Structures are given as C-alpha cells and as structure tokens.
C-alpha cells in the first residue's frame, strides 16, 4: 500500500479550491472554460497516475514539505486518488455543459467540485470517499425481501 503525507492532498485541495473559485468568478467566459479544462486535466492526472505523481504533489514535496515538521500520521494514497476521479467526472461534465451552451449547469457542477475541495482543504473531509459507500449500497442488487415488497 502506498503511504503518503496527508498534507499533500490537503495542499492539492487548497490549490484546487483557488482554481475552481476563479473559474466560477469568471464564468461564463472563455477564460473560465480554459482554466476548468486545465483543472480537469489535473484531476485526470491524479486519478490515473496517483495523487503523489501530479505537478502539485511535486510542488508540495519540493517547496512546501521541507518547511513543515514530519507528519504525525501517514495516509493511504487510494482514497484521495479515488476523490480525484470524482473531481474529474464533475470537471468533465461541467466542461461539456459549458461547451454545449448550458453555462448555469456547468457552474453548478463546478460548484459541487469546489464544495468538495473546500471540505477537504479546510476540514480534512473527503466527500468523494464517503459517497462511495452510499453509491455501493444503492447500486448492488437488492435482497429478496426488497424485490418482493408489495408495490401498492
């Protein structure tokens, strides 16, 4: 299992917060779409290569971390990586909405990703990680008792 400094994903989330807030501040505009495309690319990078191999993780390792005390605890790299995948899904959907001429939908989707990034950066809370179990609960086939429940 890959162990990482939990402050790495928090740093990434802080930068993501600033980028997505700027996107919304400028939306709807071509600048907003360009910046969102860049952030979506970063999400994809984190999800595909792992959160410890992104450009932001490199900045954290070389610039931020040497100035911090050693971490009190190590964290598994899988949860934040999964969350990057969720971020990518929202970013990509928002991009499609902006390009398709539905900027309000695009902004709302970015808003969800922003809220998740804020929760991670400020409160250390991983929304994408928690939603995972709820999704699993509802997507796995129901048991017999529910299948035969009366319909009226």
């Amino acid at each position: 299992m890959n162990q990482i400094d939990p402050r790495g994903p928090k740093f990434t989330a802080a930068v993501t917060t600033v980028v997505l807030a700027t996107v919304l501040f400028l939306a709807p505009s071509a600048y907003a779409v360009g910046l969102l495309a860049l952030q979506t690319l970063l999400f994809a990078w984190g999800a595909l290569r792992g959160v410890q191999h992104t450009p932001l993780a490199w900045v954290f390792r070389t610039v931020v971390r040497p100035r911090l005390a050693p971490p009190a605890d190590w964290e598994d790299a899988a949860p934040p990586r999964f969350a990057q995948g969720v971020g990518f899904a929202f970013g990509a959907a928002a991009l499609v909405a902006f390009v398709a001429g539905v900027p309000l939908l695009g902004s709302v989707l970015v808003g969800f990703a922003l809220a998740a990034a804020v929760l991670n950066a400020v409160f250390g809370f991983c929304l994408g990680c928690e939603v995972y179990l709820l999704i699993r609960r509802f997507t796995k086939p129901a048991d017999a008792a529910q299948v035969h429940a009366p319909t009226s």
Partner: protein
Amino acid sequence: MSSGQTVLVVALLLAAAFGIYRGFVDGRFGGTHRVRGVTSDQPEPGYDARIPVLADTEHAEDIGSFATLLQFSSTFCAPCRVARRVLAEVAASTPGVVHLEIDAEHHLELVRRLGVQRTPTTLVLDAEGHEVTRAAGAPTAVQVRAALAMLD
C-alpha cells in the same frame, strides 16, 4: 453578479455549513438504528432488535465478554484509519472489550440492515451482541470510553 459568482458564493456557504455541522456530530455516540433511523416507524426488512447484530455472520462468536466495538470501514476512507487506532487502543486497555472491524463493501446486507450510512461507523454492542449506541465519524478515546460507561 454573474451566474458563476452566485454559484461560487452558494457553494462556499454550503461547504462551510456542512463542514461545521460534521465537525460537531463526528464521533458523537447517540441513539441506535431504531431510535434515529430515517424510517423509524417502519424498520427495514430483516431488522429485528431482539436478534444480536452479528447473529448470522461469521463474526457471531467473536464478540467481547463485556462489550464489542464494531467498526464499519471501507477502502476509500482515511478517517477509518484513525478510528481503527483509537478503537484498538481502547479495546486493548479495557478487559472484556473486543474491537471488530468489518469491510462495509463486502457486507452490504449487514450495512443495509443496520442502516449504516457512512464509514467509519462504530456500533457499541453489549455482552449479548445487541446494539447499545453508535457513532458516525472517527470518535476520540474519551468518547468511546464514555459510550462504554453506558454499559456499567
């Protein structure tokens, strides 16, 4: 204000409100599934408070002679690691108390029956294996000891 800026403000306010609320409820023991379940008037199919929680699982014989700290975890869950450390520490220092960790994803039937919404969720079971109280989110050692004191 543009539509994007409106979404920006709303997203930040919602994230802050949710984060503060979560910080308040995380790790607090209280109620059981029956007391605060969403559909408290109609228990979920297969739920019977008279039957021990782990009765028909492979862990039925693993419960502690005084109490069991039953933790539901998932792969994509960083706070689960914190909860694991705290619960294991309390179990090791309290005679008759056992810490059991169950992968929620691989026990979805149990998760549904008990109404577990998120990970980590910790159930305190008495010597017979009945649920006494539960907490969602990683609890502190003080909170766990206070919950165990309810059994005395």
